[in-house]
C-alpha cells in the first residue's frame, strides 16, 4: 500500500476510534438543523430548549447534534430523534413548546409523539418500515414490481401488511447494468438491512426469515457500497425524501457540517486518497469525462471536457480552480444549503480537480449574503489544513493545493464565470469577452477551471464509485442527479435531489405534494431570470438539459418555482425582467439599454397602456439581446418574457386589448367594487383603506371612489361578507 493510502487509513481509523471512544453510537441522538433557513425558522431556540432539558434531566446518554439542512424547508425546524436500533423519528415545525412534549414523551418516555411527526403520514406504530429502490430504470411501466412482490411475500407469510410501512424510494444506485429490471432492492428498518432478490420465492424467504423468524438472511444481504445508505437509513421513511436520490446532498442534514470526523467516517476523502495514490491525473479527467457529468451551474458544459481543455489549451504551469458559489437566482438556495450542510465535499472535489489539471491554488467565490456558509467553509478549510488534506504535501503525496475564500458583494452578474473572475481580481464584476475561454486565459490570464458548487460536489462521488456507476443514473445526455429548490405554490417547498430524467410531475406532485387544494397548476418556472415558464401541459417533460431547452427554458442552477392560476404570466415575466434589468452590469449596450426598453414595454402592457405592436417590439428586442449581448446574463435576460409570450400569448393579448388581468395581479388593471347586495355596512373596509377612498355610513352600502383607489386590495382582504368584487 502506498504512503497516501497509509495516511488515509490512519486518518480514517483515528476518526472512527474517536467516535467509538465518544460512545456516541450508544446514545440517544437528537439532530437539529443548523443552517440559515433552519435558524430563521427557529432551530436555535429549539437547540437551547433541548440543552436546558438535557441538563435538567441529568442524563448523559442524550446527545444533541447539529446537522445541515435536509431541504425540507416548509416543515422546519426539523428535529430527528434516533434511539440506537430503533426506527428513526423526525419531527416537524418544532418549537420550544413541542420540545417539551418530545422530550418528556419520547426521549424520556420512549413513546414517539405521533402528532408531531414529519409529514404526519402516520399516527400508528409499525413493526417494520421497508424502503424500496424504485429508480426510473428498474421500474416497469407504472407498477412497481418490487412492491408487488413484497406485498405478495407478506401475504404468503401471513404478515399483517398494516404492520409494515412500505415506501418507494429513489434510486439506490446499486444495480449493475445486466441486472436492470431483474434485481430488486429493499431496505428493512429498524435493522437497516439491505436485501436484494430476483424471484418471488426469494422475496418470500426474506420476509419469512426477517419478519417472522426475526433472523437476518445473510445470503441476500447486499454488501455493495451504498452511497445514500446513511441518508436512507435516517430519512428513507419520509415520502418527501425517499423519492429523491441524494448523491451530492447525501450528508446534508445527517452529519455535523463542522465535523471532519463525520465527513471522513462517511467515506470522505477516500476518493482523494485513491486518486492521489494512483498518481494519474489523466485518469481523473477520463473518469469525469466518462461519467458524463455536466456543469450544474446552468450551461451544462461537459465537466471532463472543460478540465481537459485547461490541460491541453495551454502549457502555462500556473493554473487555478474556482468554485462558483455566487448563487444568485432568486428562488434558488441549493448551493447555500450544500455549503452549510457539507462543506468538506466541495473541498475534496476541488482538490481532486486541482490535482487533475495541475492547479495549486483554488478559490471559492461565495455570496457575502451567506455568512453561515462562509463560516462553515472557513472552519472546514482550517480543519482540512490541520489534517493535511489541504495545503502542502496533501496526504503525504507531495501534491500542494490550497483554497482561499473570496466574497461576492451583491452582484448577480458575478455568477457569470468571466465576471466572477474579474470580481476575484478585485474589480467591478463586469464580464469579459469569451473567447478566450477561462480554461485558456482565466484568473490573471492563467488557465482556470470554474465549476459550481453542485458540480464539485459530484466529483468525489464519481471517483469513489466509478464513472460507470454514475453514468447509470439519469439519462443518456444528462447523467447523475440534479438538485432543485422547489418553491412557489407547491405544498412541500424545499430542496430536492432527483435523478436527471425525472419528470416535472414527479417532482411537483410526488415529492412536492402538489398544489394547495383548489388551485390548478399554470406553469413551472425553471432557470430563474435566465429561464422560462413551462406551461402546465408540459408537466410530463423529463428534466434534462436538452428537453428543457427545447421547451424554451433551461436547467439553470436549479430554481423551480410553481405558479398557479392566481399568478399572472405578464407580471411574472415582468418581475424577472425587473430583476435582470437591475442586475445588468451596464457594460454592453443590448443588455444595459435593452432590458430597460423591454421593461418599459412590459410596464405598459401590465398597466393597460400596451399596444399590439409592443409584442413585435418585445420579440425584436429579445432577439437582439439574445444574439448580441456580451454575456449570458444579457443573452438570457429576454427568456422569461419570450417564453411567456410564446406559451401564454392569449394572456398578453388580454392585457393589451381587453385591458384585463385574468389573475388580478396587475394592479392597474384591477378594480375593486362593492357588491351592494352583500354589503352590510360594517365599515371595516373603510377603516382599513389606507387612502380613505371608501365612503358610506354605518349599515349603509359602501362605495369605493375609483379615482383615488390605489388597488391595494386591503378592502377585499378585510371584508367578511365577500362583498368586495375584483374585476
Amino acid at each position, binding site marked *: 500500500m502506498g504512503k497516501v493510502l497509509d495516511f488515509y487509513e490512519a486518518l480514517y481509523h483515528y476518526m472512527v476510534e474517536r467516535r467509538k471512544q465518544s460512545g456516541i453510537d450508544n446514545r440517544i441522538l437528537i439532530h437539529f438543523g443548523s443552517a440559515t433557513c433552519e435558524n430563521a425558522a427557529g432551530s436555535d431556540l429549539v437547540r437551547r430548549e433541548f440543552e436546558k432539558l438535557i441538563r435538567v434531566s441529568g442524563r448523559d446518554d442524550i446527545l444533541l447534534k447539529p446537522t445541515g439542512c435536509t431541504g425540507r424547508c416548509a416543515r422546519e425546524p426539523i428535529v430527528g430523534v434516533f434511539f440506537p436500533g430503533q426506527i428513526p423519528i423526525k419531527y416537524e415545525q418544532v418549537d420550544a413548546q413541542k420540545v417539551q412534549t418530545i422530550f418528556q414523551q419520547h426521549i424520556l418516555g420512549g413513546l414517539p409523539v405521533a402528532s408531531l411527526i414529519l409529514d404526519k403520514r402516520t399516527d400508528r406504530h409499525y413493526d417494520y418500515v421497508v424502503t424500496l429502490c424504485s429508480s426510473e430504470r428498474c421500474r416497469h411501466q407504472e407498477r412497481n414490481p418490487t412492491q408487488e412482490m413484497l406485498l405478495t411475500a407478506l401475504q404468503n407469510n401471513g404478515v399483517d401488511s398494516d404492520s409494515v410501512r412500505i415506501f418507494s424510494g429513489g434510486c439506490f444506485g446499486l444495480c449493475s447494468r445486466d441486472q436492470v429490471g431483474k434485481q430488486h432492492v429493499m431496505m428493512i428498518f429498524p435493522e437497516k438491512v439491505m436485501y436484494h432478490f430476483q424471484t418471488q420465492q426469494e422475496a418470500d424467504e426474506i420476509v419469512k426469515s426477517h419478519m417472522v423468524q426475526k433472523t437476518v438472511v445473510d445470503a441476500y444481504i447486499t454488501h455493495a457500497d451504498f452511497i445514500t445508505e446513511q441518508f436512507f437509513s435516517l430519512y428513507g421513511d419520509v415520502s418527501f425524501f425517499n423519492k429523491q436520490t441524494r448523491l451530492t446532498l447525501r450528508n446534508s442534514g445527517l452529519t455535523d457540517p463542522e465535523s471532519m470526523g463525520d465527513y471522513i467516517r462517511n467515506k470522505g476523502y477516500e476518493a482523494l486518497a485513491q486518486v492521489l495514490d494512483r498518481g494519474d491525473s489523466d485518469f481523473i479527467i477520463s473518469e469525469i469525462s466518462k461519467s458524463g457529468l455536466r456543469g450544474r451551474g446552468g450551461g451544462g458544459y461537459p465537466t471532463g471536457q472543460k478540465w481537459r481543455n485547461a490541460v491541453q489549451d495551454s502549457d502555462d504551469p500556473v493554473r487555478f480552480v474556482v468554485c462558483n458559489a455566487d448563487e444568485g437566482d432568486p428562488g434558488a438556495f441549493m448551493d447555500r444549503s450544500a455549503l452549510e450542510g457539507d462543506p468538506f465535499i466541495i473541498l475534496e472535489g476541488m482538490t481532486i480537480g486541482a490535482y487533475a489539471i495541475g492547479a495549486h491554488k483554488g478559490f471559492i467565490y461565495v455570496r457575502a449574503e451567506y455568512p453561515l456558509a462562509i463560516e462553515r467553509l472557513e472552519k472546514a478549510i482550517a480543519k482540512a489544513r490541520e489534517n493535511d488534506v489541504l495545503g502542502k504535501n496533501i496526504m503525504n503525496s507531495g501534491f500542494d493545493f490550497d483554497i482561499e475564500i473570496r466574497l461576492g458583494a451583491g452582484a448577480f452578474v458575478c455568477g457569470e464565470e468571466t465576471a466572477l473572475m474579474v470580481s476575484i481580481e478585485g474589480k467591478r464584476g463586469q464580464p469579459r469577452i469569451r473567447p478566450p475561454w477561462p480554461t485558456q486565459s482565466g484568473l490573471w490570464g492563467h488557465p482556470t477551471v470554474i465549476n459550481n458548487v453542485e458540480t464539485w460536489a459530484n466529483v468525489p462521488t464519481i471517483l469513489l464509485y466509478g464513472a460507470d456507476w454514475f453514468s447509470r443514473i439519469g439519462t443518456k445526455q444528462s447523467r447523475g442527479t440534479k438538485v432543485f429548490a422547489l418553491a412557489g405554490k407547491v405544498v412541500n417547498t424545499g430542496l430536492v435531489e432527483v435523478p436527471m430524467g425525472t419528470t416535472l410531475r414527479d417532482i411537483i406532485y410526488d415529492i412536492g405534494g402538489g398544489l394547495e387544494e383548489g388551485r390548478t397548476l399554470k406553469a413551472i418556472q425553471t432557470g430563474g431570470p435566465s429561464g422560462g415558464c413551462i406551461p402546465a401541459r408540459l408537466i410530463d417533460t423529463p428534466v434534462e438539459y436538452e428537453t428543457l431547452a427545447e421547451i424554451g427554458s433551461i436547467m439553470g442552477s436549479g430554481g423551480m418555482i410553481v405558479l398557479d392560476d392566481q399568478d399572472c404570466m405578464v407580471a411574472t415575466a415582468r418581475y424577472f425582467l425587473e430583476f435582470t434589468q437591475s442586475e445588468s452590469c451596464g457594460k454592453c449596450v443590448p443588455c444595459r439599454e435593452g432590458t430597460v426598453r423591454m421593461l418599459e414595454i412590459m410596464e405598459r402592457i401590465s398597466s393597460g397602456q400596451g399596444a399590439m405592436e409592443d409584442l413585435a417590439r418585445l420579440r425584436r428586442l429579445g432577439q*437582439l439581446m439574445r*444574439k448580441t449581448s456580451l454575456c449570458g446574463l444579457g443573452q438570457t435576460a429576454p427568456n422569461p418574457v419570450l417564453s411567456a409570450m410564446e406559451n401564454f400569448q392569449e394572456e398578453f393579448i388580454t392585457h393589451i386589448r381587453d385591458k384585463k388581468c385574468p389573475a388580478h395581479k396587475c394592479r392597474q388593471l384591477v378594480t375593486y367594487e362593492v357588491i351592494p347586495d352583500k354589503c352590510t355596512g360594517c365599515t371595516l373596509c373603510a377603516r382599513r383603506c389606507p387612502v380613505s377612498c371608501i365612503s358610506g355610513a354605518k349599515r349603509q352600502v359602501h362605495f369605493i371612489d375609483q379615482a383615488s383607489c390605489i388597488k391595494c386590495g386591503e378592502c377585499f382582504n378585510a371584508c367578511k361578507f365577500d362583498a368586495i368584487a375584483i374585476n
Partner: protein
Amino acid sequence: MTQVHIRIDDTDLAVSPQLTIMEAAEQLGIQIPRLCYHPDLSIEGACRVCIVEVEGYKNYLPSCATRVQEGMVIRTNSPEIRQARRDLVELIIDNHPRECQTCERDGNCELQNLAYAMGVRERLFEGRRKLYKVESSSPAVIRDAEKCILCRRCVRVCSEIQGIHNLSQLYRGFDTRVAPAHEAPMNESVCIACGQCINVCPVAAFLERPSTDAVWRSLSDPETLVIAQVAPAIRAAIGEGFNLPPGQIMTGQTVTALRRLGFDIVFDTNFGADLTVVEEAHEFARRLKENRDLPLLTSCSPGWIKFLEHFYPEFIPNASTCKSPMSILSTVSKTYYAQQRGIDPKKIFMVAIMPCVAKKFEAERGEHVSETGAPYTDVVLTTRELIWMIKAYGIDLTHLPEGEFDHPLGFSTGAADLFGKTGGVMEAVLRTAVEQLTGQTLTSIDFQQVRDVEGIREAQLEVAGRTLHVAVANGLNNAKLLLEKVKSGEAHYDLIELMACPGGCVGGGGQPYPPPGYHVLDKEILKKRAQALLDIDAGKPLRKAHENPYIIEIYKEFLGEPGSPVSHKLLHTTYHPREPRGIK
C-alpha cells in the same frame, strides 16, 4: 508565420491568426462599423456595433475582439446583422439627449455619423433616458454625463495611456456613469486636464471649457489691445479643421485669419519657446555643474506638471522652474513689450491659442499673475475653438494669404518649432546647452536619437568630456515608467523631457478631431504633424534659440542674462504638491 484561411462575405483570404475579424476585413476594404473600439486602447467589446455572423456560432461575435481561426466563414452584412446594428445604435441614441443641433460636436460626432450610416430614421424603442447635470468645476475639462454613451474610451485613455486613473465607471446598469472617484467635481480630482478624454470621446461627454465668448467680447472692445499668441503645434494641425490633409503648414494663413478676426497683435508662442530654451539650458548647465536636482525635468507641459504635483511631489525640486513658452510670452508681452511700447498692461488682453486643454488650467494658476494679481494669460483657446471662430466668422482659411507675426515677439528660431512635438524640447535645449557646456559651435544640430514618436526614448551624448544621459517620454504612463526607474536607481538621467500627450503637443487634447479616414491619436496624423514642424525647423536660417536676435535683444535691454534676478522673477515659477494624491 503560418496563415489561416477564412472567408469574409464570400471572399476567401489567408491572414495571420493574430488578426481580429475586424482587422482581417479591413484587408478587403470592409470597414466594419464600430464605436467603442480604439486601436490604441484595450478591447472593450461593449457597444456590440461591430458584430458579425460567424458560421457555427449561435450568437453574433464582436469583430474587434474575436481573432480569426482556420476555416471561419464570416458575414459582415446580412440583413439580420444590419438590423441588429441599426437597433443597437438606436438603443444608444434612445438614451442620449436629442439636442444634436445645439451640441458642440454637431456634424463631428461619431454617434451621429453612425446613426446615419446604420439607417436609424425612426425611433422604435424610445423611453426614459438618463438625466445628469453638466459638471463644469474644472477650468479645463467639463463633463456631461448625460451625453455619455459608456464606451469607456475616456476611462481607458486616462488609465492606459495617461496612467492617471482619474475616471472610472461608477454604479451599474442603466445608472452607470463615468466620473472621478466619489463622483467628485473634476477640479477636486486628480484630473491633470490633458484633455485626452475629450479627444477620444465619440460624442460630447467631455469638452474643453469654452472660452470663445470672452474672446469675442474683448475683440469688440475698442479700449482693449487684444494680442494672440499661437503655439507651434497649431500651425501643423489647424488645416485639418478646413478639410486639408494632416501635416499642412498653415502658419501664415493662421496669422491672417487672426488679424481678420480682429486681433490687434499676433505674436508667436515660439518666441516664448526660444526664451524658455535659453533659460532652461542655463538652468541645466548650472545643475550639471553643481550636480544637484538631476535629472532636470522639463516643465512646459502643464498636464505633466499637474501630474507631477499630484503623483510625484518628491520630484518637484527636479522640475525646471522655467515657465512654459505660453506663460513666458504672456509675461513678456505684459511687461517688456508693454513697457517698450508704453502700453498699460491692464489694457492688454492676451489670448493664447494652444493645442492643449491643460493650458486653460495653467493660465489660471496663481503663480502666473502680475504684481496686481491679474493673470498674464487672459484666455486660452484650443485649436478646435479657434477653428470654430474662424468658421463662425465665415473665413476660409485655405484661401487666405500668408501673414507675418508681429515683432518683436513674433520671431523665432527652428528650435522653438520643435516644442510642438515629443523630443522637441530636448533637442532645442541640447542645441543651446551643448554649445554652452562645450563653448563650441554645433555644426550638426539634428539630434536624431530623440526624434521618434515612440513613448519612451533614451540617448547618451558625449559632451565636454562627460556622458549626458537623456530621456524623453510622452503619455504619462511612460512618464511613470521613467520616474520609477529613476526612483529605484535603476537608471540615471541628467535631463528628461516629459509631455503629457501622446506625440507631444501635436497630439494635444485641444487639437482638431480627426478627419475622415483617421482615428483619434492616429500615429499617422501625429507623425505628419510632427514632420511639418521638423520641416519648418529645417527651413529656418536660425535653428538655435540663443541665436534669435530678439532674444539677444531682450536679455540686453530687459532681462540681463539667463538666470538673472529679473528672469527669475518673471520667467520662472514654483510648484506645490496637490491633493488628492494620485496613486502610482
